[in-house]
């Protein structure tokens, strides 16, 4: 420590932005009254450390406003640190600005003495070195002209000559040699190298990385007042250059993107439906420099994942949505648009006055039969299945019974399924249930996925961020829009029902639909869980969602939604595609029609007539965007910390 010539320890420099602007009493009084005086503080340097040994040459690099000059000024003594200490053991020749303190009306001769005095030199000393200075500056016959008539290069020359006439112990040089002609620059560099070899310590600020590499042994990289890197000049400079190029590329891309959004340009894509699929696609198209218009016939964005904030509770307006995925890129992708909480879906089922955990796991079985070990459970179920002796299940009831036995079926499957489909289990085809997963652990987590959670602030926020900068028209029907603006777009991404696009020319595709009865209750906690299923047939609704529990809400009231299954009729809100043989065949025919529409892309749950979880929607949309925009997207999100480029 003792050997260092400069010690900067944990230095912070604070500017008060608010009071910087207060130049008169009136403003002062107003700001005082508004309590604004002390609040806009700005740290130009944050906890900066720098230790320089004698004879080292340090380059300070960083973008404009990163605190380089502030650090130099602190070392020079112009600024006092707000926190931390600065120790300098040696005489400093500051060249923060060449010829600072030149008086434009004085002659060069007079200014040499004045500037010398500013740097703390005595008159006799200046007299001694006068000839050298004049010679180095190359002023000749202009010595007795007022320097306001000098060119900036001449002034810089004079300033440099005065500042470097002695061999100071520390030379501080702040981007001062950018003016001046080639020869002068060469001369300056020679002089600096001469001083360096003479043992002068140099602190050098420059945006010219090459000159830093050439002159300096060490470098310090500052960004927004913080030290990013410090060490060998070459290493730091290379890291800095790489990062700068990266930023430059990103900025250029952003600029291109903005340019493409000029109003009046034809839209590259008309995205029909502002749901998750449409929003993800539009976002990626926007980033690729395409101009999009997103329309939706609803009066809000978000499609079915729309959440509305009612009494400070995010209400899932179109049913419970719990995000879960096992795909890391998708998880990284959504996390760019929202923070996710640690909600884990653990629904419970109510049958008459009994309560069971879902999915069917050891907690469930233990409650059903009072058993404790997986072995006992397996035995019990095997017994019940054997009792029934079903070889070829003819309907859903027989299918389910052959999978889980009588108790589980009657209490937890039968009523719920019958309510869902609106008919008796014996009348339902067996293929609806292919398997009923049984879990022989005490684990109530409904999903098996690696990542799970609810976005903090609701799903609408994600959509809003995806659509940032993109034109959106709500309550706009596709057909009407196209009729009114036929030539305003190149291509269409259609995420509505595919049969509707073709005006149901081949018939209607069928859906299963649900209806919600939402109400706000004057109590803090209604059911103690976000999702409670009702599995007996007598209760008319299939489940109750208590929305606040998705985000661990502590609001004084609560909002619940009772969910009823309804028979779907054309015109109703479509929820779940019914992928039976008949409907799949019809969809196939529509798909054939769709192939012929080369200016229209179909996507999403309704466009593809396929049930998707949210992560699947995002993946599908991104894959579509990759194909359509001909660029790689998903691989950028493969890493643990996605870097956007």
């Amino acid at each position: 420590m003792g050997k260092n010539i400069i010690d900067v320890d944990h230095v912070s420099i604070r500017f008060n932005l608010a009071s910087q602007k207060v130049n008169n009493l009136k403003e002062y009084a107003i700001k005082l009254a508004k309590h604004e005086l002390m609040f806009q503080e700005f740290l130009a340097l944050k906890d900066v450390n720098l230790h320089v040994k004698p004879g080292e040459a340090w380059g300070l690099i960083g973008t404009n406003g990163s605190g380089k000059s502030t650090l130099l000024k602190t070392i020079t003594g112009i600024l006092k640190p707000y926190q931390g200490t600065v120790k300098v053991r040696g005489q400093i020749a500051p060249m923060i600005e060449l010829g600072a303190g030149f008086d434009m009306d004085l002659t060069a001769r007079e200014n040499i003495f004045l500037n010398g005095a500013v740097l703390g030199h005595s008159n006799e000393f200046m007299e001694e070195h006068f000839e050298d200075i004049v010679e180095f500056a190359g002023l000749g016959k202009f010595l007795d002209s007022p320097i306001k008539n000098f060119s900036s290069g001449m002034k810089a020359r004079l300033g440099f000559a005065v500042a470097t006439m002695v061999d100071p112990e520390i030379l501080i040089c702040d981007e001062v040699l950018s003016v001046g002609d080639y020869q002068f620059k060469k001369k300056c560099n020679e002089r600096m190298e001469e001083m360096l070899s003479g043992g002068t310590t140099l602190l050098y600020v420059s945006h010219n990385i090459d000159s830093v590499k050439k002159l300096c042994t060490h470098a310090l990289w500052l960004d927004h007042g913080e030290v990013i890197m410090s060490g060998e000049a070459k290493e730091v400079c290379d890291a800095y250059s790489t990062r700068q190029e990266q930023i430059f590329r990103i900025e250029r891309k952003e600029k291109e993107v903005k340019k493409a959004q000029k109003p009046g340009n034809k839209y590259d894509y008309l995205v029909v439906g502002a749901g998750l699929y449409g929003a993800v696609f539009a976002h990626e198209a926007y980033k690729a420099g395409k101009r999009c218009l997103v329309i939706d016939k609803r009066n809000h964005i978000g499609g079915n994942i729309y959440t509305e904030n009612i009494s400070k509770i995010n209400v899932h307006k179109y049913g419970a949505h719990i995000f879960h995925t096992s795909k890391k890129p998708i998880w990284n992708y959504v996390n760019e648009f929202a923070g996710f909480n640690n909600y884990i879906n653990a629904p419970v089922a109510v049958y008459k006055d009994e309560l069971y955990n879902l999915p069917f796991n050891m907690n469930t079985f233990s409650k059903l039969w009072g058993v404790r070990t997986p072995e006992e459970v397996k035995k019990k179920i095997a017994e019940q299945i054997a009792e029934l002796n079903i070889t070829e299940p003819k309907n859903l009831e027989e299918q389910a019974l052959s999978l889980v036995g009588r108790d589980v079926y009657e209490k937890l499957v039968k009523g719920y399924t019958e309510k869902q489909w609106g008919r008796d289990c014996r009348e339902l085809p067996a293929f609806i249930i292919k398997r009923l997963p049984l879990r022989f652990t005490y684990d109530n987590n409904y999903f098996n996925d690696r990542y799970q959670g609810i976005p903090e602030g609701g799903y609408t926020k994600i959509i809003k961020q995806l659509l940032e900068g993109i034109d959106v028209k709500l309550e706009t029907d596709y057909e009407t829009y196209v009729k009114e603006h036929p030539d305003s777009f190149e291509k269409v991404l259609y995420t509505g029902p595919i049969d509707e696009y073709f005006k149901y020319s081949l018939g209607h595709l069928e859906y299963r639909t649900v209806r919600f009865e939402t109400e706000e209750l004057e109590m803090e906690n209604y059911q103690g869980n976000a999702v409670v299923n009702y599995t007996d047939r007598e209760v008319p609704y299939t489940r109750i969602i208590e929305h606040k529990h998705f985000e661990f809400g502590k609001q004084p009231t609560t909002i619940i939604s009772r969910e009823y299954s309804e028979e779907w009729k054309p015109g109703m809100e479509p929820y779940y595609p019914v992928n039976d043989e008949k409907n799949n065949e019809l969809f196939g025919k529509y798909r054939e029609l769709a192939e012929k529409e080369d200016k229209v892309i179909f996507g999403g749950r309704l466009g593809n007539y396929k049930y998707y979880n949210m992560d699947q929607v995002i993946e599908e949309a991104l894959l579509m965007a990759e194909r359509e925009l001909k660029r790689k997207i998903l691989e950028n999100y493969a890493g643990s910390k996605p870097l956007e480029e």
Partner: protein
Amino acid sequence: MSTFRYRVNTFIQYKDLIKELVSRDLKLKYRRSFLGYVWSVLNPLLIMIVMTVVFSAMFKRNIENYPVYLLCGRMLFEFMTNSTNGAMRSVTGNASLLKKTYIPKYIFTLAKVTSCLLDFIFSLGALLIVMVATGATFHWQILLTPLVIVQLYIFCCGVGFLLAQLHVFFRDIQYIYKAVTTAWMYLTPIFYPLEQLPDIVQLLIKAGNPMYYYVAQFRDMVLYGRLPGPRIFWGGWVFAFVMLFIGVWSFKKNKDKFILYI
């Protein structure tokens, strides 16, 4: 003690800067005018003539050698206003320099008051000319005037430091100070005899107007050829040092914050 020695050392290191700054001020003031330094003398002379013509009708009867009486007061007061106004802007005016290199900030204030002092000393030539022209007697007491000038110089430095630091934070002070100096001028017996004022005002001026102390001392020495009374003599010193103390204290307290506001 080491901080004190450090301060003295820095002062010595920068004394040539004061010299350069003072000579810059003086050089620039008259550069490109034909008469140059002559104006330091000529200017007060011309103003004195104008004011004598205007005011002599009003106060002639009471005052012996009105031109000298007027000039004494006016020149001292002029020095005070010039130096304090200059000092007020000394920190803000050198912002570009202070932002770029480390210089003790008081140097600028000190240099400004000093250059005004030199200007004042040059202009004393005008006083001599008028004294000769009006046939005034030269008393030996005139040799003591440097004592008054030193008092006033110290006083002006004090006011200058106070104003210089205030001006950094509130630019309004310059307008307020303009009004203050105008009032101050009328409350100082420069072109009228003090006795003409109502008793109570006289009393207040005698008690609280430092400029009265300096003007009165100066006139005693130059015009009346007598030693000033101990009250105004010592009062002058007290005012000077109290003001210097206030000025230096406020300046020192705030100097590290200047850089954020200029």
